[in-house]
């Protein structure tokens, strides 16, 4: 125990001398979390929409009202004389959507004739275009339904039974992606300490400190655990900061047990750090060890850990790869605790997976670590 403390203190003293490194591990991780959460968020609001209303009748106003009620659109009215000018706006990027209501719109509706509305959508950003089309067709569908019902009632007929659709989304009522992405991203960003631990071992070899350290009676466990411990502590600091950012900057609810989250977070950081340490034992130089650790723990989870891309639709071998990623399990844990408010009863398979992984990786690192040169 004293030996572990001696090695850990030595590593902390070195880290404190290297201010930029500490800065990277804490502030860098925060910056990564903030930027990734925003860039990967697919929440779309306020799409600039131009309405050219040639009709100006009651029915047109009704239609426009439905559009403005949807937060998706930010509606602007323009008094264009023709379609050409409206298209010009689209081309200049002043609007993503242009809706043209023809002069006979109200008349057609009132006479129960098909009323045509022209919608021009900027397809250069297909994601937004697709969403815009869905929103408009939903609004038009609703309006049509209301018109049919009103028409039937006016004629004294009772309207047919309609299929009622009342979706209720659990855990993330507004389906905000930032709310579900942020807990997952914590899994990605909490691997920054793992990269640090990997580089600490490689650095010691490269600077020649290793040769002298292994000539002392310091055992292999103290050398491994003592060097890793400070990075797990930095990870703990990162957890605290990330929980605060999630709560206060992104309005991610924390419905479950914070202590459980911190505890499993530590297990996760230890699993990732031990893997980083193992990589540093297998690869001789600092930069290759750092790059490989970063690829495996900083990049791969973005694609493979069910944070943005659904793993269930991936080929089986990728699903397996996903299952052995510690980040996959931690994503389930983070979402479970933050959004669902579930506890150990629901999360134990993932918690156990992380425990097994951290023990396996540290044992492998121990087996691979030799107090020998060359």
């Amino acid at each position, binding site marked *: 125990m004293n030996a572990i403390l001696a090695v850990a203190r030595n590593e902390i003293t070195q880290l404190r001398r290297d201010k930029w490194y500490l800065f990277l591990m804490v502030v860098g991780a925060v910056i990564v979390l903030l930027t990734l959460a925003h860039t990967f968020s697919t929440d779309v609001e306020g799409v600039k929409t131009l309405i050219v209303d040639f009709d100006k009748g009651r029915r047109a106003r009704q239609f426009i009202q439905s559009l403005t009620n949807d937060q998706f659109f930010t509606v602007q009215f323009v008094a264009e004389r023709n379609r050409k000018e409206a298209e010009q706006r689209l081309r200049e990027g002043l609007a993503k959507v242009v809706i043209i209501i023809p002069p006979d719109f109200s008349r057609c509706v009132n006479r129960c004739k098909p009323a045509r509305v022209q919608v021009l959508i900027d397809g250069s950003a297909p994601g937004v275009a697709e969403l815009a089309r869905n929103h408009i067709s939903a609004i038009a569908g609703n309006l049509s339904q209301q018109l049919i019902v009103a028409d039937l009632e006016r004629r004294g007929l009772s309207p047919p039974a309609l299929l009622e659709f009342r979706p209720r989304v659990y855990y993330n009522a507004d389906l905000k992606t930032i709310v579900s992405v942020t807990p997952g991203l914590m899994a990605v960003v909490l691997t920054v300490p793992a990269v640090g631990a990997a580089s600490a071992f490689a650095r010691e070899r490269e*600077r020649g400190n*290793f040769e002298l350290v292994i000539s*002392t009676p310091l055992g292999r466990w103290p050398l491994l655990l003592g060097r890793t411990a400070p990075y797990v502590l930095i990870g703990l600091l990162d957890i605290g900061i990330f929980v605060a950012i999630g709560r206060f900057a992104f309005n991610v609810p924390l419905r479950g047990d914070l202590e459980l989250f911190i505890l499993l977070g530590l297990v996760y950081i230890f699993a990732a750090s031990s893997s980083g340490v193992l990589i540093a034992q297998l690869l001789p130089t600092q930069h290759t060890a750092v790059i490989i650790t970063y690829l495996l723990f900083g990049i791969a989870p973005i694609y493979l850990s069910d944070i943005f891309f659904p793993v269930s639709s991936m080929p089986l071998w990728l699903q397996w790869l996903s299952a052995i990623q510690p980040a996959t399990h931690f994503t389930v844990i983070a979402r479970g605790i933050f959004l669902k408010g579930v506890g150990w009863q629901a999360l134990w398979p993932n918690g156990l997976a992380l425990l097994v992984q951290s023990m396996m990786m540290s044992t492998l690192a121990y087996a691979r670590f030799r107090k020998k040169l060359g």
Partner: protein
Amino acid sequence: MKSNDLAVIARGLTKRFGDFTAVDRIDFDVRRGEIFGFLGPNGAGKTTTIRMMLGLLQPTEGTVEALGVSVTENPERLRPRIGYMAQKFSLYNDLTVLQNLRFYGQAYGLRNALLKERIQEALHMTDLEGREQVHTKDLSGGWRQRLALSAAIIHRPELLFLDEPTAGVDPISRRAFWDMLYKLIAGGITVFVTTHYMDEAEHCHQLAFIQRGKLISTGSPAEIKQDVMHSQVLEIAPDDTPKAVKTLRAACEAGNLPLEEVAMYGPLVHVTAPQMKQHQDAIAATLRRVGVEPGEMTIIEPSLEDVFIACMQ
């Protein structure tokens, strides 16, 4: 000699890296309480040998026993009893002198009052007092070497391994360093030191010459001089030294003079040959023929540098 008088016993020690044999079946003994000098040019296998003795490299063949412990089988049992100064400075540059010493003291299990006492002792021994708070990377070469020595002796080892401890250090620091080693020896420690400085080799009790992985000669400095140098060294002080060297080498190559070695020592020339007395006149005549005045000629006792050069032929 009783075996417990020996600090190190190496037998058939061999290290191969692929096809390259770095150390080739060497045998030697290091006696307790002595300075054992391991000499050889760069790349001769000195560092490889020292690393095998420390258990940091596994020998391909052969055995090393140090302080009665088999290093090849049980290096961990040896560690608390030995100190090591690696060829490359291996302490933490980001740490202060005191932080480095505290860490290495703790690595050897020293704590609290004992740790403080030993740090003071090591600082005093190496004259580092007053520099405790200096950052290691700000120390000059000579001071770093003192720090490396104090880290190596902080746990009062019985056996100290020094791998080219004075490389790249100025002569005054080197002299001071050897004074420290003598103080340690007086305290009963055994020192194994590698070097290629011949003046340092003269300070050792026992020497071993290694070249291309093979041990060429072992013994005390005097024994080695006798063993290796069957020849005598003639010191000449000619008025034109470069011309004298050139002339003698040419004569030697032409077979006119049976000389083993012609070497320039500043304004002097050292000529090596067996039965030097018989050739002295011929050498003088050869020089005069090309207009060089040989000046004073004396047969001198060979220095270790002469021995070293003779060995490496």
